[in-house]
C-alpha cells in the first residue's frame, strides 16, 4: 500500500494518521458497496445458464437500470439516516 505516500518509510509530519485511516475505511466501504451491487445485479439480470460470453441487449439494459436503482436507493437511505441523526 503506497497510497498517499505511505510505506516510504519516512515519517512525515503533515500526514494525519486519523485522516488516512478514515480514507482507508471509506475505500473499504465503497469497494464493499461495489461488490454488493455487482452481486445483486448479476443475480437479477444475468440468467444462470451460460449462452454467450457477451451480455445481450436485455441483460445489459437490466444491469444499467439495476445499478441506477441501487445508487438511487443508497442516496435515499443515506439522506434518511442523516435526517434521523440530525433529529436525535
Amino acid at each position, binding site marked *: 500500500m503506497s497510497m498517499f505516500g505511505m510505506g516510504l518509510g519516512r515519517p512525515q509530519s503533515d500526514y494525519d494518521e486519523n485522516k488516512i485511516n478514515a480514507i482507508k475505511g471509506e475505500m473499504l466501504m465503497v469497494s464493499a458497496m461495489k461488490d454488493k451491487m455487482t452481486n445483486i445485479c448479476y443475480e437479477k439480470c444475468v440468467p444462470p445458464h451460460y449462452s454467450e460470453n*457477451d451480455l*445481450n*441487449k*436485455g441483460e*445489459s*439494459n437490466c444491469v*444499467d*437500470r439495476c445499478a441506477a436503482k441501487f445508487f438511487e436507493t443508497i442516496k435515499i437511505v443515506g439522506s434518511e439516516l442523516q435526517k434521523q441523526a440530525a433529529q436525535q
Partner: protein
Amino acid sequence: MSSEMSTSTPPVPEKPRNPVFEAMGIPRIRLPGPKMSVFLLTVAGIAGLIYYDKRERRANRQKWKDRVSHFAEQPLPVTALTRKVTVYLSPPPGDHMEVTMEHFTQYVKPILTAAAIDWELVKEQRQGDIRYEVAEAIRRQRRGDDDRTPEQKALSSVITRDTDGGAICIGRGAYKEYLHGVHEGWLGPLEPPASLEPVATTPQPPSTEPAADVKDSFVESADIVINEANASSAAAESGVVTAQTPPGANESEKPVSEEEQKIKDEEQKKKDETAKKSPKAYISTEDYATAPTPAEFSKIDHLEPIMYIPHPHILGFRHTPIRTYRYFTKRNLADKVGAVTAAVVLNNFRQFIPRIDVEAGKHEEDEWPVKWKQTGIEKGSEWMQDVVVDERVVDKLRVYELPNNLDDGGFVKNDDGFVADK
C-alpha cells in the same frame, strides 16, 4: 321463499352417524342451503370472471412480449447503449398521476422491457408542462445549447447510443400537448416574446387584500378620504394603527417598512402563482400558419416519431356500468396497448396524416368529467383546445403504426433476428 321451502319439505329422518366423528366434534356435512348457494355462486362467478380476465390479460401481454423479445437477445457491445424512448405521462382529468402510472406499468412497460428498450419518463402534473418541456428541448437543440458536463461529453465520445428515439404519449391530453409542443418549439421564437412577460406575471386575484392594504397606506400621505365602500375590516384596522402611532420620525419609518413588507408579500404571492401555473406558450396556435420557418428547420430530415397510447378512463357513479364492463375486460385493453407499444418497438412508422392523427384518441375527451371540461373551457385550458397543426411540421412528423402483415405471422427468422417477410 326459503322459509316456505323448508316448511313444505318433510323433515328427513337423520341417519345414524359414525360415533367417532361425533366424538371428534366434526359436524355433519350438508349441501348448502338455497341462500348459501346463491351467495357462493355469485362469489364464484365474480371471482371466475376476474381470474379469467387476469389470465387472458397475462396471455395477451405475453403474446406481444414474445413478438418483440428477439430484440433483447441481440448482442450488445460494452460501449453501446440501447435505444431510448421518451414517455410522456400526465394525470387524467380529475384524477391522480398514479392512474396513468399504473396504466404504463401494466400495459406499456412490460413490452418495452421485453424488447430491451430503455425509456425516460416525463411526468408532469400540470397542464402545459409537457408542451413546455417538449418545446424547450427543441429550442435548446435550435440554439445549440449543450449543458453536458465535460465528463459526460468525454463519455459520449466513447459510449454510443442507438439513435432511434421515439415519443410515447399516454392519453389524449399528453398527445395534444406533445403536438403543440413540437409546433411551439419549431415555429415559435427562441426567447420568450416581450408580450408574454407581463402576461405571465400579472395574473393576480381581482383586487385582493394586499392591494387594498397598499392603497390604504398611501391614503395617509395623500390625505384622501377612504371610500366608505372600501372601508373593510382591513381599512378599519389600518386606521386604528395610524391613530395609535405617535407623530414624528418613527411614523415615516414604520409605514415604509410595512409597505415594503406588503410589496414583498405581493411579489411572493405573484411568484407562487406563476410557479403554480405552467409557462405560457411562446406562440399561440393561431399564429402557427403565419410563423416564419426557422433556418434550423430545413436542416433536419424528420422529427421524432410519435405514438399515442390509448388511456380510457371514466369517472363518476353514473358510469358504473361502463366501468364495471371495463374492469372485467382489461384483457382487450392489454391487447390493444400491447399492439401499439409493439409498433413503437418494431420502429415501424408512417407519415403523419392530419385527418387521422389529429383526431387520435378524440373519443377520450367525451369521457372527461363534464364539470372539469366546463371549468377548462372557462379558464382556457390547453386540453380543451383543438389540435392545430401546420403543414411544415406535419411534413416531417411521423407516427408509429403496427405493420399490416404482423398478424398473419409474416415474420421469419434469419441470422440477424426477425425480419418482415414480404
